[in-house]
């Protein structure tokens, strides 16, 4: 049975489609990301600070919201082209962010030495700078590839039969869920292979400099560069914002009570998921921050595995788990919250670990020497210092859960719709105007914790 499913032409077909899409989107993102990062950090592009901030924002747009607005503007842009365009436009910041950070931190002296040894600025860029940003670009590229492999929203809206959509169709089509499960495992194997490959290709870590790098005048390339970045911003941010606005204005207000109820469901389910995830992440994160050894390495590995675990596979695994082992929990809110915990635990553990590492161990030593026991020290010193970072982790899990689509589709209790599932259902039947309010509220729900958190963290710094 397993072997039959594996060697079916359809399995190979799905794998080829998914990998082709992943390779194409990753290549496009690396190109856009490296170019964008260089323009923002190293060139004299007018308004490059503002452009730098704006170019990161597409990350906040869920792929299915972007897909929905594009479909609204060009209903026939489905299939590979549509999926490629949408996924590239929402995920190029995964490359731009780390590359820009590396370019900022890279020691400009290395490039200057290359110039002093007789290279032109172009040669110096190719032979020195490009090597410095390679680790960041491959790491970012890996995130993009994993994102594309596990994306369900964009490919399902664009009706591109990728692996995730294949799994979902197979899951829906028959009562026998084994084929779906096998496909899910293949997807995980693909993701792990990518992760391992990236670690090999990463190369040496770039050195850190202290000076800010010099700016390169763009000269005649200035106008094309400006037009290019404007176009990129227009496509990746302008289209979703404009599309949503247009549909909202044209919209038939389809039952405001529904919208309110759906919003409440989303907040409740995502909130429960965030709470459960943080409670589970606390002990692991504290241990990982304070002790070295196999556990810490295990946690690091788990965080990679978490990135590589597609929502659809986790959803499927929990459907099996629920149906076979704990039927009482199947299709309950608790089960869905648990799915979010499985998916986003690595995210939360990372946040807790970083937060606890912010409270130096020497402070714990001082507290102990002043007569406080281990527990009192954790409570009085470490936790107050780590609280902002832990809250940040909780907010991150909350907004990621609110946006999650495939696992939510499979595991939500009957009759409970979240903003994401409702948006997906409405877009499936091309009810774009009816879908628009859900998309708008979803963006707001996801944005509120982000904004509050940003303010809170900045307040703490002062």
């Amino acid at each position, binding site marked *: 049975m397993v072997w039959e499913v594996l060697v079916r032409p359809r399995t190979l077909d799905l794998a080829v489609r998914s990998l082709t899409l992943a390779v194409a989107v990753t290549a496009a993102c690396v190109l856009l990301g490296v170019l964008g990062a260089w323009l923002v950090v190293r060139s004299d592009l007018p308004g490059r600070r503002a452009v730098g901030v704006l170019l990161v924002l597409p990350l906040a747009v869920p792929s299915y919201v972007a897909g929905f607005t594009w479909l609204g503007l060009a209903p026939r842009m489905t299939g590979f082209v549509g999926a490629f365009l949408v996924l590239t436009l929402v995920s190029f910041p995964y490359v731009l962010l780390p590359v820009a950070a590396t370019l900022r931190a890279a020691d400009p002296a290395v490039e200057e030495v290359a110039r002093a040894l007789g290279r032109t600025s172009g040669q110096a860029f190719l032979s020195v700078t490009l090597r410095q940003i390679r680790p960041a670009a491959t790491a970012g590229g890996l995130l993009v590839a994993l994102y594309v492999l596990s994306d369900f929203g964009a490919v399902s809206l664009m009706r591109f039969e990728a692996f995730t959509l294949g799994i979902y169709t197979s899951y829906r089509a028959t009562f026998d869920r084994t084929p779906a499960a096998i496909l899910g495992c293949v997807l995980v194997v693909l993701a792990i292979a990518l992760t391992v490959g990236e670690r090999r290709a990463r190369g040496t870590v770039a050195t850190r400099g202290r000076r800010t790098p010099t700016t390169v005048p763009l000269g005649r390339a200035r106008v094309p560069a400006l037009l290019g970045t404007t176009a990129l911003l227009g496509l990746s941010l302008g289209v979703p914002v404009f599309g949503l606005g247009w549909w909202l204005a044209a919209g038939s207000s389809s039952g405001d009570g529904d919208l309110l109820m759906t919003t409440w469901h989303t907040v409740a389910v995502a909130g429960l998921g965030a709470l459960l995830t943080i409670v589970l992440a606390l002990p692991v994160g504290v241990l990982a921050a304070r002790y070295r050894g196999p556990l810490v390495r295990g946690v690091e590995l788990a965080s990679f595995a978490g990135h590589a675990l597609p929502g659809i596979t986790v959803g499927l695994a929990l459907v099996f788990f629920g149906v076979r082992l704990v039927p009482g929990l199947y299709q309950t809110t608790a089960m869905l919250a648990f799915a979010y915990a499985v998916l986003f635990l690595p995210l939360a553990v990372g946040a807790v670990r970083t937060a606890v590492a912010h409270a130096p161990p020497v402070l714990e030593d001082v507290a102990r*020497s002043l*007569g406080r026991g281990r527990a009192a020290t954790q409570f009085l010193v470490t936790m107050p*210092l780590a609280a902002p970072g832990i809250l940040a982790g909780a907010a991150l899990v909350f907004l990621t859960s609110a946006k999650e689509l495939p696992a939510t589709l499979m595991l939500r209790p009957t009759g409970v719709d979240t903003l994401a599932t409702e948006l997906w259902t409405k877009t499936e039947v091309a009810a774009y105007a009816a879908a628009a309010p859900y998309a708008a509220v979803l963006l707001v729900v996801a944005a509120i914790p982000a904004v509050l958190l940003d303010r809170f963290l900045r307040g703490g710094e002062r």
Partner: protein
Amino acid sequence: MTFLDVKGLVAGYGSEPVLCGVDLAVPEGGLLAVLGPSGCGKTTLLRVLAGFHPVRDGQVVLADRLLAGGSVHVPPERRGIGIVPQEGALFPHLTVAGNVGFGLPRHGRRNGRVDELLDLVGLSGYGARMPAQLSGGQQQRVALARALAPRPGVVLMDEPFSSLDASLRDELRVDVRAALRAFGATAVLVTHDQGEALGVADAVAVLRNGVVAQLGAPQQVYTDPADLGVALFVGEAVTFDAVARDGVAETPLGRLPVHGRASGAGTVLVRPEQLLVGDHGEVAGVVATVDDVLFHGHDATVLLRLANGTRMRSRVQGVLPAQPGDEVAVRVSGTALFFPERRS
């Protein structure tokens, strides 16, 4: 009477111990400086005393109470030993008063004890500030007040002055000593700075390769070091291989009287302040060439070269007429140290 008593202390991280049999004794109210180069085990020693690191052998006794040794390991919170880490390590989320009162029981925070302590370290009225609003020196003062608040048996200080600039350092040293005296507190300070150890402590322990090479009063360690290594570590010096006969050694600086009535081959050691420099004729001595003069304001260091190529430093008070390239006369005042050659 010995108050803090450390005997045969062995501790470490891997298979090689960092401390291999440390003996220390500090009287009540005393201030001991543990002096050693980086990596000699100073910080490990502090961590063992405070209870953050286990002992493998030997024991730590404070006021006749066994804190560590054998199967005994009293946890840090029950040792009554305060610590002042490098750069203070104040709790960033608490006010200055919150920091100082951290180790006090709840009722103890309101009876003026916190104000009294802040007063003592010269920071009255700073209670409501946050640590980030204080300078480095002020943070160190708060850290000391915090450590002293619960009346610990001993206060341990880990290079408390190393992060401060020179002028602030002297001022803080004087104040810290005054605060410790006012409380009758016993303290152990570790440092790699010779000036700091000799200048601030009642007693100095020179830690080398995990054992105490010498324990004594600062003056004793400087003027009567246990061996050549200690002598070279606690201050600048010029050394010559020489043969002594009945307390007199033949050196490139002439015949010098040496400590004790030493005889045989060994090393003669002269401190820079013992080298008197003057014009020919004015000072009867050996001729040397001035290589360079480093002027410090209050005094100057003169780099000298003897005819045989030996280079040395002399510390000279006041105005010196010599210029690089000049020839001067050099004489040694007082007796030189002599370390007989070790026969293996």
